[in-house]
């Protein structure tokens, strides 16, 4: 009987925090970056592709996975934990289809994953899942959705979000750059996702993996050529911006603006 009560790992600290959950969030911060953007007719997921060893086979799309025809998930954190969670979520999607004769809503499957993550913060002898997820898709009434969960089991809906390494930087960029016009345009939404990722990742199509999902269509991973086209467009736009800023400086004299996009791109290269 005593064995049932003293094996809990996640217990409160004196000042009311769950240290195990916070340590799990640290593990997430070490994972490679993932960005999600919600547009009116498209949802985009972008992840940082880490370099693989020379002898290793390069398997594409390991970090972005499909949970059902209309739901996709990207994660940041422990890959093995993600595999287990993904497996359970896929079963739940089909179970829902069987019992309710309808595909899951994105909120439902997010709630399921979040509940599962929460359960492991209250379990006996179990540690929390060390990952945050970005879940995107379209409900069967056509509404695009983007949700994010974290190791504590909370979930929120977002217009655009980033998780993983340097997520704060990327999120701040997204807050500045996200506009209604971007929301309306498919092309701009994809470009925003790539731009956000390029804030923290070296420029080049071999370092990013982008997947998009349109309404009533399956998840599509953009090929390297398509990504290169977007990156070329972004770099051209950056150059034009840099030119404008240089001219403004020459004419105006004083420059009171904060560090611009130009300096950031030049830092990367």
């Amino acid at each position, binding site marked *: 009987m005593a064995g049932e009560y003293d094996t809990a790992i996640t217990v409160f600290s004196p000042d009311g925090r769950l240290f195990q959950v916070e340590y799990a969030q640290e593990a997430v911060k070490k994972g490679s970056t993932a960005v999600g953007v919600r547009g009116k007719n498209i949802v985009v997921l972008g992840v940082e592709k880490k370099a693989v060893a020379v002898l290793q086979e390069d398997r594409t799309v390991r970090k972005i996975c499909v949970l059902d025809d209309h739901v996709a998930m990207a994660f940041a954190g422990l890959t093995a934990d993600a595999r287990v969670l993904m497996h359970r979520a896929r079963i739940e999607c089909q179970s829902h289809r069987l019992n309710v*004769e309808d595909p899951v809503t994105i909120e*439902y499957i997010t709630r399921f994953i979040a509940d599962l993550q929460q359960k492991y913060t209250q379990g006996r002898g179990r540690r929390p899942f060390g990952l945050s997820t970005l879940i995107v898709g379209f409900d069967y009434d056509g509404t695009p959705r983007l949700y994010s969960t974290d190791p504590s089991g909370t979930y929120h809906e977002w217009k655009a979000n980033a998780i993983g390494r340097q997520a704060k930087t990327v999120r701040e960029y997204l807050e500045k750059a996200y506009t209604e016009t971007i929301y309306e345009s498919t092309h701009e939404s994809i470009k925003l996702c790539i731009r956000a990722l390029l804030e923290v990742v070296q420029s080049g199509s071999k370092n990013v993996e982008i997947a998009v999902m349109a309404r009533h269509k399956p998840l599509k991973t953009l090929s390297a050529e398509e990504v290169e086209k977007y990156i070329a467009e972004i770099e051209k736009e950056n150059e034009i911006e840099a030119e404008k800023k240089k001219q403004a400086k020459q004419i105006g004299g004083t420059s009171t603006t904060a560090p611009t996009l130009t300096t950031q791109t030049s830092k990367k290269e």
Partner: protein
Amino acid sequence: MALANVLGFKSNNEFDRSLQCQKTDNNIDEFCPTLNIENIAQFITLPPYADPAKYLKMVNEKVDRVKIQFLKGTTTLAFKFRNGVIVAVDSRATAGGFIASGEVKKVIEINPYLLGTMAGGAADCAFWERVLARHCRIYELRNKEKISVAAASKILANMIFEYRGMGLSMGTMIVGWDKRGPGLYMVSDDGERISDNIFSVGSGSIYAYSILDAGYKYEMSTVDAIDLARRAIVHAAHRDAASGNIVRIYHMKETGWEKIEEKDTNDYMYQYRDEKTMNF
């Protein structure tokens, strides 16, 4: 099993369904004391045999001249048409040749947009449709939208299937209106769950079907549909000994169900005879 779960009983062995209480701290339920082998007899009356399925098989198959036949002495019907679904039932309850009651409510109002009909065991239908109402409400709270008729009927069918062969007797129709429009499913105790435009269940269904099949058109007006349903029940009440007394009619609309009427079938019989619209 649903009932066993509510009481906190778990059966370890899938094949041996004898009840073992396993209440742990995970589900502390202050309204239900910890039940065990010693005190169980105080709280619920267990049947005097371990395996209900095996016992009932014996009784059904006429061993020692004993045969319990579960008859569904009633007439219930429901059909979809262009303005929704019409549900009509009689109100007689019989025990063999004895009319136990003439005022049974055979339509169960699960919630303002779902109806269930009762045929077979009254207790079975009433109880399981109340459990269904609980599931529907929790679904609505969790998912912030009304449950679909397909899902509700599937929940009921799955619950019943767990008790298949153990003596449940229900032939119920689940009627509702959801995102996909009017919904009508028939769920029965052998685990069947089917959807169609016209259903009738009970010993008087054969008479009801003849009237329905003769006069049914999907494009009927509401008034005509109600009249058709009324005539079908009245005809069944006239010919079937186990159906009669009061006819109750409900109309399922997009905004929910509405009770149309509850009148005596005898009065209608005389009315139709005088009008010469039916040969009574």
